[in-house]
């Protein structure tokens, strides 16, 4: 069991990373990665949704009528997303505003449905839960990478703390405005996928 979870984690983060290899969930990866904090919250939100939707769907997989399978999946996923959205509104209001529609758009994030269809319906609840954590982590890791790079070079800070020393600004260093707009995330994502592949990851081999 533990070995299986470990292998599953390794695969979903490194070998078949949902963003880098399967190229799923790219939309939000481009949109909410201006700051590391936003990226982390988004990553964690998605991880929780995939994990719990996988768990729930896997627990009731023998009872789901096949004809309405997809609708059941969507209903479970969208209620989980709604709950997360409500929690953010109640406890993390500014973040909820910063992430705006992208939290609700987790419903349509292909990673969630993809894992439900491909994994949860064929495996035990516990294994599915960890598969969700793994895939969510794969997504979160990429988001965190893009988020840190964009925040460092776009705003000179990391998690809101200035990291580029101010004497560099005195010497004429300026923040890169390109980093603040979505195309920068696209370019960075390309570079990250390239790095993954060059190092032997994201090739889908098992």
């Amino acid at each position, binding site marked *: 069991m533990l070995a299986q979870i470990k292998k599953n984690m390794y695969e979903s983060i490194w070998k078949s990373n949902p963003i880098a290899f399967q190229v799923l969930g790219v939309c939000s990866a481009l*949109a909410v990665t201006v700051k590391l904090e936003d990226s982390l919250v988004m990553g964690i939100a998605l991880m929780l949704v995939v994990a719990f939707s996988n768990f729930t769907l896997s627990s009731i997989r023998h*009872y*789901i*009528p*096949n*004809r*309405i399978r997809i*609708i*059941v999946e969507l*209903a*479970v996923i969208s*209620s989980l997303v*709604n*709950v997360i959205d*409500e*929690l953010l*509104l*109640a*406890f993390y*209001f500014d973040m909820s*505003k910063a992430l*705006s*529609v*992208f939290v609700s758009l987790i419903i349509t994030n292909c990673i969630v449905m993809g894992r439900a269809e491909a994994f949860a319906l064929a495996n035990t609840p516990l294994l599915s839960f960890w598969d969700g954590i793994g895939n969510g982590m794969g997504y979160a890791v990429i988001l965190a990478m893009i988020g840190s790079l964009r925040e460092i070079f776009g705003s000179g800070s990391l998690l809101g703390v200035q990291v580029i020393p101010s004497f560099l600004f005195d010497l004429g260093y300026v923040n890169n405005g390109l980093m603040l*707009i*979505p195309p920068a995330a696209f370019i960075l994502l390309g570079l990250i996928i390239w790095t993954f592949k060059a190092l032997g990851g994201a090739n889908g081999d098992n």
Partner: protein
Amino acid sequence: MRGSKYTIFFTLAMCLLISTLLAGTSWILKDRQDFNKKIDVQKNILSAAGINVANVQDVEETYNQRVRSMFISKDGKIMDTVANDTLDCKQIFKIKTLTDHAFVYPIVGKGLWSTLYGYLAVGASGKSIIGITFYKHGETPGLGAEIEKKWFCSNFIGKTLYNNDKFTGIFVAKGKAKNDVKYKMYPNSIVDGISGATITSKGVEKMLSIVPLQYHNFFNKE
């Protein structure tokens, strides 16, 4: 293969369970969410007038110290007792700023997909703009949603709603204000638009040509 009866039963049970869950969550969290929204509105009113409060905890206190909410009638008189913000009466906030006082009033208008809600802060004469904020809208992120960003809102600071004592509103240019034909006539009443969000920009322009007029009588009486 199970029959249709099972499918229908399953669907009903699922719907019941999920709706209970969602209604429950929303019911439990409602108080906190309402509180957050209230603080957010107060923060927006303050920040439209250029007062930024760093700590969420201090917002309510600062608001109570500096802001006085008033209602005015159509002909600009301050009303004593009013229940709702109807067509005939408008809400306005008088705010103590560091040096002087300012007025903030709510602005509402149509964007591309949604209604835009915000606050406009004007000087004591009601002519020059001190600041503007948008706190609720459903525009496209990255395009129309840019209206709530600092770069767009700070465009408005120092602009004037009146030219030669005539109300002109604020024009939102297509692209850079300097390249717009209206810039020559009204250099103090035109701001940069948002590229890729022409309809949202036009919505803001329209809103600023309608709402401030409703306060015209109030300011010209004082």
